[in-house]
């Protein structure tokens, strides 16, 4: 069953610039999908349309767990946890206040939120930071609190825009482990990244986007078969996006 389904999705900025061009895409359950592409290829625009931040051009539809985000936005938004590429939000809230805020919006019962906050804080080494304002956090800590807030309601779909940027090695490892556990439980993760090694080691499937079109969708092994033996992922990526 597909957890995210995009049908005929396009996005045009200022009436002329087509950032995303007629995308059809299904993301299966139990997979970690890496979304890669050069700067300005349409990754963030696509993720923003999936999460309801941007409205696609007419005709297309986006479903999360079978719920159309255009028709039933609030219920669709409950299905996923989203981490944006900028963690500089809610800076004057304390870490614990932010987590409580997110838990309230997603209706997380008190007992569960306590357990999850304790678990996440331990895995990300944030126990000593939750009483402080997010303003006092480093970039990596801000990223971690945003990840914690997004996952607090245990969503079946994780959508993460450059989630590993700024994380220290231990936290990056913890997040990657959590992504694997999540997929192993039959749920799905979709994340964008520029780091090809991360995609290589972590993803079950990848999607390469270039100039608003998905130019490849599938497993890395299948991708490699299409190119010369011994070619690195970097070389393959550069060759696929050379006219970017």
């Amino acid at each position, binding site marked *: 069953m597909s957890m995210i389904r995009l049908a005929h999705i396009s996005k045009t900025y200022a009436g002329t610039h087509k950032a995303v061009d007629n995308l059809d895409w299904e993301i299966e359950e139990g997979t970690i999908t890496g979304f890669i592409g050069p700067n300005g290829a349409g990754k963030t625009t696509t993720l923003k349309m999936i*999460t309801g931040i941007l409205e696609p051009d007419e005709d297309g539809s986006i479903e999360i767990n079978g719920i159309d985000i255009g028709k039933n936005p609030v219920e669709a938004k409950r299905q996923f946890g989203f981490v944006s590429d900028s963690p500089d939000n809610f800076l004057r809230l304390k870490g614990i206040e932010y987590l409580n805020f997110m838990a*309230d919006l997603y209706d997380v019962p008190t007992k569960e939120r306590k357990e999850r906050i304790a678990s996440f804080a331990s895995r990300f080494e944030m126990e000593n930071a*939750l009483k*402080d*304002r997010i303003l006092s956090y480093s970039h990596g800590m801000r990223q971690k609190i945003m990840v914690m807030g997004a996952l607090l309601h245990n969503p079946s779909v994780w959508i993460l825009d450059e989630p590993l940027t700024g994380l220290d090695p231990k936290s990056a490892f913890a997040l990657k482990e959590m992504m694997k556990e999540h997929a192993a439980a039959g749920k799905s993760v979709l994340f964008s990244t520029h780091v090809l090694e991360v995609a290589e080691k972590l993803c079950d499937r990848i999607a390469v986007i270039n100039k608003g079109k998905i130019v490849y969708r599938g497993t890395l092994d299948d991708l490699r078969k299409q190119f010369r033996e011994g070619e690195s992922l970097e070389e393959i990526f550069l060759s696929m996006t050379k006219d970017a």
Partner: protein
Amino acid sequence: MRKYRKLTWILLKCGMGNAMSTGSTGKKKKSRKLSGAALWLLMLVCLLPLAYMMFQAGQSGYEMLAPLGQEGLLLEMACFTGGMATLILGLPYILSVFYMSGDVQTLLPLPLKPVQIVGAKFTVVWVYETATTAFLLLPLLIGYGTAAGAGISFWIASLAGLLLLPVVPMAYAALISMIFMRIGKGAKNKSLLTTLGTVFILIISMCVGMFSSQLENMDQEGLVNLLTAGKNSLVGFLSKLFPNLRFLVKAMTGEGLAHLPLFFAVTAVILVVFLFVAGKLYFGGVLSMSETTSKRQKITASESEKLVRRRSAMSTYVKKELHLLFRTPIYLLNCVLILLIWPALFLVPVVISMFAQFDSVSEGFAAMKGMLGALSSAGADPQAAAVAALVVVAGSYGITLFVGSMNLVCATAISREGSGFIAMKYLPMSYRDQVKAKLLSGLLPGFVGTTGYLLILLAIGVYWGVPLWAAALGILISLVVNFGMNCFQLWRDVCRPKLVWANEQQAVKQNFNSMLSMLVLWVLGGLIGVLFGWLYWKFEVPIGALAGIFTAALAALDVLIYRILLRSADRRIAEYE
């Protein structure tokens, strides 16, 4: 100098060019441009009565003072008021631009001298302050000039005055800010310190402004002698606070344009001294702004019980709004405290001047007691009770309109989100519910802000023997007007939020919505008040019946605005990208 020019240009381009920008994209771009132009037009129309009042003040002021040969006093008073307004309004603005702006962290690592950064930022603030001062003073100067049949020298001096008048008060405000930030550099809670410090500085500035006048200390005989001496003998006596003013006024009053170079010279000296001192002080304070303090303590089990608790989505959203509002100094000052401070600043001089008429404070209190006693005995008179009812009803309306219009919480509720606006889009809460939460967070300070003044009015009303129904109606009117105004202000911001800004000050002070909402509410509120007065005096409708009908009509208007607001929330917020 080249670096200063480049930096100024960049800062102006980033900060000043987006007073009306919204989060919308090309969709409906043309219609938005048209509606933007229409809004500017609407604002100009709303400003016309105020501009006309200032024009009239200039004309009639000249006609009153010219026979005494003291017409220069009007110009000095106007320039002094403009200067004080710059000083008071400029303080939070300068604090924000110099210390809290997002560009500070970008500028500090660049090979720039403190004086270049201060100079560029000072110029940016000067452009904004000059526009504000010109708006206030230009109609008055035109009124004065036309009444006086002034020649070219008056207009040249006026132009120079409009351009350079803000420089000295801005230099004062910047110096006070820098000294304050330098002293408070080690403080743990900088947000709280900045807020409290700004309020303190505002009060001190007002007091300095009020008591710096030499006229206050002059005996009556001396004053009469000066007044009758003519030839603008009073010029220069109003204030020593801005030493360049007297030269400007002399140049304007026809004592020769020769005074204009002196005005330039004094302004330049103050500016140079300011830049020299600022060069020494600025980095010391601004570098500490990037230091953030944290406790780095674990949450204990008992704290967890208290902190981690389930609430409804609506109450948690309101709480979040209030936290962000009260913890951001610029928002707290401009959106909340200003509606508590401003009326107090008007009241304090009135009370001080009342008490100044008596030899001792106890004598003043005794007089006040006598006055209240007289009010109390007047209450027995049925005619007086009717007048008291009218005063309470009209007073409640007027106070709520005036104080409530300064409440910018709702007027900037969406704009304050800035780039964090996208969270509104992906959180699982409908746009109308988020807007309802924002409305609630604005109503709270609105009610608190008006309640204090309302209570004073009602207390006087009780002494005066105001009927119970009038007091209840007064409270009801205040609630209804407050609700409607907040809905209107929020609706404006939902329709055209200013989401692109470089510092928090721009989100609230350089925001078209807040000014437009305030002006429209004043004009509309004034018209409703005039209609009420006309019906009361023309048709002698009983005050209770008339106020009841008006309250019901205003409540119906509230329902209409509220519905429009929610519909706009659904439609407009989805459009912003």
